[in-house]
């Protein structure tokens, strides 16, 4: 037999026109994975990086040791936050199609990630989100009009017109700025957590990146520094299978799970059903307690599916089957929590419809207010002078001169 070296090129299981195939996703039955003590040593719990923690089964029943036994009102609140995220996303997507905003990114199908995780953390914990984590703003009670003003780059934009839509930040809500350069926030979150430990505070940090950008060096720096200093941080890889058109196999997901990078660095890695609100909540709570009690960092891989296009500039019909999400084995996070609540006798189709209608109205009312503060090319505008502010704390002489030049240019045009 002629043995030779070979080049392996990862291949997507199904392309447009082919039948979706998710046989590559390793699943565990709901309730089947053990829940170790929060102080367990990372080396003793490496099975968590291989299995898939699930609480809700296909019938909406909550099973097993990870069942967080949340109060019904918490569950209903989680459902509301996820639904509001989706309604907001849908409305902003339409707004982009109408040409009112330049760009948008939905989190369709991934709402449980941001919502359950933010709910499981404390308000003083610092969040370093990626661009598909709008749900953390919803959970922390940010007025929708604030988010919309950022999308519109209008006179109330928190970024003063400097950032692409969805790159929000919120000091009061302890939500860090979204960069737009991927993965950079991951090691920054570790530094933030190290500082919390140096100062002797018990706040922890949490950060999110996609499985695609886990290929960046920043991901590895984050894990390394988290491991070396045992920083109180939760590092989340949102494995939604797709990085624009690049399948997760190209980020190294074919050979081992992303969670398994954790044990490789000597930190706990845990793989969770990202569309199971209860499982995501329970795993985050477990990781937060580890961090807060000095047991160290945790890498969580949230297995989910990017049901939407990457952004309003993307067309996934060109690279994946149209009915992919319909066949996704972990379903829809909103439908699953809704099913669970109905099973508990704490929700109904009617209440769901009523809530949807209420949230549609809420979003519409906020939009109506947001546009009164201006749109990108219509209505009140920010003063262009602002572009020279905040480059440095004080405006240096060369920027003062350039600001004068720009003013003169504008005056000539008018």
């Amino acid at each position, binding site marked *: 037999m002629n043995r030779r070296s070979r080049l392996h090129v990862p291949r997507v299981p199904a392309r447009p026109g082919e039948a979706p195939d998710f046989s590559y996703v390793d699943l565990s039955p709901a309730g089947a994975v053990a829940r170790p003590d929060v102080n367990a040593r990372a080396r003793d719990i490496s099975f968590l990086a291989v299995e898939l923690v699930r609480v809700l089964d296909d019938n909406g029943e909550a099973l097993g040791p990870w069942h967080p036994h949340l109060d019904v009102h918490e569950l209903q609140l989680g459902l509301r936050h996820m639904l509001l995220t989706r309604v907001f996303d849908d409305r902003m997507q339409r707004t982009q199609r109408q040409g009112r905003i330049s760009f948008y990114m939905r989190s369709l199908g991934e709402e449980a990630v941001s919502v359950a995780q933010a709910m499981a953390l404390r308000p003083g914990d*610092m969040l*370093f989100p990626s661009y598909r984590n709008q749900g953390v703003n919803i959970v922390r009670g940010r007025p929708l009009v604030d988010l919309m003003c950022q999308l519109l780059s209008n006179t109330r934009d*928190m*970024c*003063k017109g*400097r*950032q692409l839509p969805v*790159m929000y*930040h919120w*000091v009061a809500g302890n939500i*860090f*700025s979204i*960069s737009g*350069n991927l993965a*950079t926030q*991951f*090691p*920054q*979150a*570790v*530094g*933030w*957590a*190290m*500082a*919390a430990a*140096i*100062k002797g505070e018990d706040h922890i*940090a949490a950060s999110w990146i996609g499985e695609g950008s886990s290929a960046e*060096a*920043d991901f590895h*720096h*984050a894990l*390394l*520094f988290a491991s*070396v*200093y045992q920083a109180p941080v939760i590092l989340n890889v949102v494995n939604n299978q797709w990085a624009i058109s690049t399948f997760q196999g190209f980020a190294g997901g074919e050979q081992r799970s992303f969670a398994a990078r954790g044990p490789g660095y000597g930190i706990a890695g845990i793989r969770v059903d990202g569309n199971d609100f209860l499982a995501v909540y329970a795993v985050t709570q477990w990781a937060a307690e580890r961090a807060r009690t000095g047991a160290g960092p945790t890498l969580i891989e949230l297995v989910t599916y990017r049901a939407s296009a990457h952004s309003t500039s993307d067309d996934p019909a060109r690279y994946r089957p149209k009915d992919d999400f319909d066949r996704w084995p972990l379903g829809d996070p909103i439908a699953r929590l809704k099913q669970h609540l109905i099973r508990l006798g704490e929700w109904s189709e009617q209440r769901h419809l009523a809530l949807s209608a209420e949230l549609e109205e809420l979003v519409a009312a906020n939009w109506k207010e947001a546009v009164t503060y201006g749109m990108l090319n219509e209505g009140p505008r920010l003063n262009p002078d602002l572009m020279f*502010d*905040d*480059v*440095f*704390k004080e405006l*240096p*002489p*060369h920027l003062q001169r350039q600001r004068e030049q720009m003013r003169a240019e504008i005056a000539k045009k008018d």
Partner: protein
Amino acid sequence: MPQMNMIQALNSAMDIMLTRDPSVVLMGEDIGYFGGVFRTTEGLQRKHGEHRVLDTPIAEGGIIAAAIGMGVNGLRPVAEIQFADYIYPGFDQIVSELARLRFRTAGDFFAPVTIRTPCGGGIRGGQTHSQSPEGIFTHVCGVKVAMPSNPYDAKGMLIASIEDDDPVLFFEPKRLYNGPFDGDPNKPAVPWSTHPKGEVPDGYYTVPLGKADIVRPGNDLTIVTYGTMTFVAAAAAAAMGLDAEVIDLRSMVPLDVDTICTSVKKTGRCVVAHEATRFSGFGAELVALIQEECFWNLEAPIQRVAGWDTPYPHAFEWEYFPGQARVTTALKAVMESA
């Protein structure tokens, strides 16, 4: 007045800031127990504890990213990059993150990080331990860029950098760590104790960024320079008997345009000198700026002195280094013209 070399002066600056401000932390490769490969942080971990003087993994991108996160969480990190040649793995975190955090958040978030790094050649460092990449960072909006040329300035400027709420890239010309250097490697080394700028107060003081130092006033021509070339250029002019006004910029961002232009308007002649490579170097910005502001006062074309546009070669260090011969050629050209 105590005598210090540049390493002792930098050490004193960090010691004082660690003592004065509980939010100051140091981090970097080999800086803790060992005290740094150039001994700049010697004794500081023992005195201030391993939570405040942190040894780090060999990951410059991680060091700078972690420093940013610490800065956002209220600390004032001073990160050492062991050699300026090693700064590139952290380039994205500097350019895309550190420099622009204040801008992209409209002032809501910022990270007051100082990045210290030894730069420049003349120590047989070859092409990976000799670079002067400061010009690259002057092209980035949102970071300050500084390089002291003597112990007194080094201490005062480092304290000013640590206290600055903007990020500062602080380049330390390592050929000057132990003494001034006129460009001739065959002369016996001169210690800082023989130089007035080796007199350094023990206590707290600052030398502000953005204020150039007229090292030597003069009327024949203006030499605009910084770092190691401050001494090389001054020595070359003195050897020619020229009454040169030598300006040590101290910081490139912010730049003290007034001091430069006042001098060039007075002398009418100008040589710009740095050790970094020539093409698209910071000297090009200086020349452009001076001709915009002082064109009608110029008696001769402005001359540039710089390293050749090659990597820094190990075996041909002194053929590469912009020593007195190269400065002299430029001085002659600028003095002989019309």
